[in-house]
């Protein structure tokens, strides 16, 4: 799938061996990936694995302590942060929230609110919204400014299952219509948006990466989620061969404990089903990357 991507696609953001260090601890390091125009990259990983940190590095909110982040000059970002709370003392309607970081035309505001199904709430104060409504308002705000790169940190949190499907459908439409690149952080370790071009699994470093397998190809999931979900969701099946202990050391599947990950550490993909990214040369499971001393050997970068 990846090698069919046209080479002339503009790279919006490229991270190479990027890492952030706080209080003598690496929050995340050795991150390599890039997002092109029209491309959807999904970050997955357990809590504290550095997903939000990685997204913040990509958009320049956090400076890297190692490696590089290159952004297209004049890149316009639309950002939906993971946590956002508006103080009760601040009177802020959904409509006013839309123009928080830049002016917009009335039509643009209406379009974005209509797209996310929030037009009827335009005059409501954001503090009165439910979790799902607030997420949709934030998404509307981010897309209304027509960004080159949309960064969504767990956009479906607090949204029910059918709302989640609808939001993924909407994100897909936005990508198709505007051709923007999308960096999505998923709260789920295995279920990602079907349109995702690349899944990057983090656990303090890039554990593995690959393309998701469409839910529709897997009868079990199809049964579980139903036909409508099948179009929007995809499975990224893998399991960890090591876990990170609270003190930063690494516990391997064989019971051994080491100070850091082995060069070949990562995730092992399940062999059952016709997992399209299993042992795919383009998968770049992270093994190649680590084995070759962080040299970028994947075809993706060619």
């Amino acid at each position, binding site marked *: 799938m990846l090698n069919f991507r046209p080479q002339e696609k503009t790279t919006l953001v490229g991270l190479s061996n990027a890492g952030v260090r706080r209080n003598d601890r690496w929050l995340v390091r050795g991150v390599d990936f890039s997002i092109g125009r029209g491309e959807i990259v999904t970050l997955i990983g357990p809590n504290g694995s550095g997903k939000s940190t990685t997204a913040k590095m990509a958009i320049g909110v956090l400076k890297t302590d190692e490696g590089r982040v290159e952004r297209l000059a004049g890149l316009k970002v639309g950002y939906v942060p993971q946590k956002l709370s508006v103080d009760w003392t*601040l009177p802020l309607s959904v409509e006013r929230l839309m123009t928080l*970081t*830049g002016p917009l035309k009335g039509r643009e505001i209406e379009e974005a609110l209509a797209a996310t199904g929030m037009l009827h709430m335009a005059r409501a104060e954001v503090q009165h919204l439910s979790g799902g409504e607030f997420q949709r308002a934030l998404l509307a705000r981010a897309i209304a400014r027509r960004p080159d790169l949309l960064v969504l940190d767990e956009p479906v949190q607090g949204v029910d299952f059918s709302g989640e499907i609808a939001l993924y459908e909407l994100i897909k439409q936005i990508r198709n219509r505007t051709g923007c690149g999308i960096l999505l952080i998923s709260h789920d370790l295995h279920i990602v948006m079907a349109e995702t071009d690349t899944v990057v699994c983090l656990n303090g470093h890039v554990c593995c990466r690959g393309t998701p397998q469409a839910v529709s190809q897997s009868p079990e999931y199809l049964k579980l989620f139903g036909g409508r979900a099948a179009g929007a969701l995809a499975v990224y099946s893998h399991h960890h061969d090591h876990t990170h202990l609270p003190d930063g050391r690494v516990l391997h599947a064989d019971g051994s404990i080491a100070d850091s990950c082995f060069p070949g550490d990562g995730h092992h993909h399940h062999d059952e089903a016709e997992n399209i990214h299993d042992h795919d040369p383009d998968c770049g499971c992270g093994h190649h990357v680590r084995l070759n001393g962080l040299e970028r050997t994947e075809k993706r970068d060619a």
Partner: protein
Amino acid sequence: MLDDFFIRALVAGIGIALVAGPLGCFVIWRRMAYFGDTMAHSALLGVALSLLFELNLMISVFIVASAVSLLLLFLQKRGALSTDALLGILSHSALSIGLVIVAFMTWVRIDLIGFLFGDILAVSRSDIDIIWGGGILVIFALVYLWRPLLAATVNPELAEAEGLKPERARLFFMLLMALVIAIAMKIVGILLITSLLIIPAATARRFAASPEIMAVFASLIGALAVTGGLFGSLHWDTPSGPSIVVAALMLFVLSLLPLGRRLGASHRF
């Protein structure tokens, strides 16, 4: 007209209230009430240094208040103590150092109560020029900084990601606070400046549907409190600063009454 001390106080007080409104809104939105208090308390150190080195009073207060806010930013970044502990340390030590320095200067006699609680008699014509000149400057700066400051209030990372400069806006905001504290000191006094920032803004919250409307309402409510307070102070011969604060408090209490329910969107406040 400005020959009358009362008119001078009124013109100066209203000028300060108009500036304090929008600035005070940010103080409560950003939960910086105690921070404002710390900057205001450090003003007494500014007073003491201005007497010691024979500097202009307002400039000296402005410099000290700015320095204290920068020091706080620096200490916050080091992250050794929580912000409220740092504020407590800075606030009272600046106030105390100021009082100690004043006590050492036996050759000067200052009206300490006037500095702490304000003194309408002290307002001169040149004070009015400075208050209105400085006030207009602050309003222009706030209009210019409005978007980045508001975006950073909601979420600094969002503002940063979308190309606004929240750090710079925050720095300018602190300088504006220092400036307002320096020019407001004579009217309400060091100990009461933050109340003029906070109470009118808090009163305005119930009636405001947008941040901009809240800022304008806060200015108007502040002006009303200054007018009421000064008239009360004249009538009952009470100190000007506390009288203004009491008037502001009365307006705040009025705003809590369940009158015109449809005006206020929220009653949680």
